[in-house]
């Protein structure tokens, strides 16, 4: 058999007149790629297309499906629980992402200048990220527990009245976002650190020669150079944040706790689909999640990616 290795991308590439080959002679390559595409067809594309169709139908999983047009989407617009879940998701996203990325940036800049113990710090910061979400959510629920939780013990020691963290709408949101910050700040620190280390030294030396101070250097060299990495972290945090499920589901249960203030949009989807068996409506919710992710990603791209990117 013959193999067609890609020639090195040199300008002086010899122009070999290639014989036309039948598509079938490449079968080995298509076979090597087939597992991913087959699995994607069955478990990715088909469910996706089916969900779009389902969004226009009514179905409980047993009786035949009926076509209902835009009814699911019309109901969605008037469903106050849907809007509440949407609001909760966006609020939680900001409450967790902004501190996460700010802390990560500060730690990364500091880590970039401290040479000693750097790898110990990095491992310590990364460990929360590989910890099971369920275990971490159980832990944070215990720490924020009203009667005997560690946070309330701390407040009591300081002479401040205990708060009913998990029994109060804002308390629930604070507990959930604290957990997300704990789990993701270290991960983003490591990513920023890698970005910082990729900035050429000469740029800093040039700034020093020009007499720029530390703050000026940070804003005129570090931040602009870090832009693609910041975009990466903002996009991944957005995609993850808009799909928050496990943290609130384990901490306050399927209903989202008091006043449904921990109910996220993916939890609402889960509720409607797998607890209420209202599959058509759940599909409409799923599609709205997808649109939301696209919208937020596009906004991020505009804000952070912005001009100056090729």
């Amino acid at each position, binding site marked *: 058999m013959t193999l067609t290795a890609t020639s090195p991308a040199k300008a002086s590439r010899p122009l070999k007149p290639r014989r036309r080959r039948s598509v079938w002679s490449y079968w080995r390559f298509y076979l090597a790629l087939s597992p991913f595409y087959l699995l994607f067809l069955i478990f990715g594309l088909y469910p996706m297309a*089916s969900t779009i169709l389902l969004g226009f139908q009514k179905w409980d999983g047993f009786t035949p499906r009926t076509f209902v047009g835009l009814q699911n989407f019309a109901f969605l617009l008037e469903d106050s629980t849907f809007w509440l879940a949407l609001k909760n998701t966006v609020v939680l996203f900001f409450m967790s992402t902004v501190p996460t990325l700010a802390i990560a940036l500060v730690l990364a800049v500091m880590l970039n200048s401290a040479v000693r113990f750097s790898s110990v710090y990095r491992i310590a910061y990364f460990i929360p990220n590989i910890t099971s979400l*369920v275990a971490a959510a159980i832990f944070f629920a215990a720490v924020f527990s009203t009667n005997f939780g560690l946070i309330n013990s701390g407040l009591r020691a300081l002479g401040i009245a205990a708060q009913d963290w998990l029994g109060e709408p804002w308390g629930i949101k604070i507990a959930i976002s604290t957990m997300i910050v704990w789990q993701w700040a270290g991960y983003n620190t490591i990513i920023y650190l890698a970005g910082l280390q990729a900035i050429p030294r000469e740029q800093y030396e040039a700034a020093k020669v020009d007499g720029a101070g530390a703050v000026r250097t940070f804003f005129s060299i570090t931040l602009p150079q870090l832009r693609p990495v910041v975009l990466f972290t903002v996009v991944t945090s957005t995609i993850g944040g808009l799909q928050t499920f496990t943290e609130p589901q384990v901490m306050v249960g399927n209903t989202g706790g008091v006043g449904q203030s921990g109910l996220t949009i993916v939890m609402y989807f889960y509720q409607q689909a797998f607890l209420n068996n209202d599959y058509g409506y759940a599909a409409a919710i799923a599609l709205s999640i997808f649109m939301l992710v696209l919208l937020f990603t596009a906004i991020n791209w505009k804000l952070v990616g912005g001009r100056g990117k090729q």
Partner: protein
Amino acid sequence: MRWQWRRVTLHVVLALAAVLSLFPFYWTLVMATNTTADIYRFPPKFTLGSQLDDNIRAVLDNVAFFQSMGNTVIVAVSTTLLVLFFDSLAAFTFAKFRFPGRNALFVILLATMLLPAQLGAIPQFQTMAAFGWVGSLKALIIPAAANAFGIFWLRQYFSSSIHDELVEAATLDGCGFLGVYRHVALPSARPALAFLGIFTFVASWNDYFWPLVVLTNPDHLTLQVALSSLNRSHGVDYSMVMTGALMAMVPLIVVFIVFARQFIKGATEGAVRG
């Protein structure tokens, strides 16, 4: 003098962040080695106790822990092996060979990474029902056996680390496609494969949404789902539930610490290149 102080402040802040990062593990250990009454008094007990045995026994009485862990190990190990094989084969093909439709197929691959996983959960559940896989571990392993992220990530690595001359030389020596893959591609991609392997293992071990949906038999769960149901039914017995959480975390943390350097290096390379 001023310089010294800056150093000290720097390390104080960095060390404080490390303590906050790691404190939950210590506190989990404290809760797991004491009785619930010990932790929930004021001021709470901050030191390790001697109740670990009793707490572990309580966990084992209330949930099929070892069976769930066995299921999780089966799922995580088989998913990881399948992903490593399928993803590296596809990535190598994309990185080193030309064939009709290559670019179009690669664009499709990239586009699939944008789709939220939960979007197709309902029809996927119906598909599992049609296959008779609801409640079975196959429903977790097969759909996860190859993924776009791994192929994309490994392709970057193969493109930059394997020279075309090497592929050509191996071909001239009589190596077929699989031979080049085995003798040239795999050995040179060991660090990248290690990262993808750990990444897949961790993600699979911690997966919650899909197992929660598809594992309908309460006697046949993965560790995360079992832990969550233990929390739901015995939420007040904190030291017992925290012992369960500890038992579910430990294997993964051990795996991570062993491979930490490679893993962190891999995680950052992907982000900076991509």
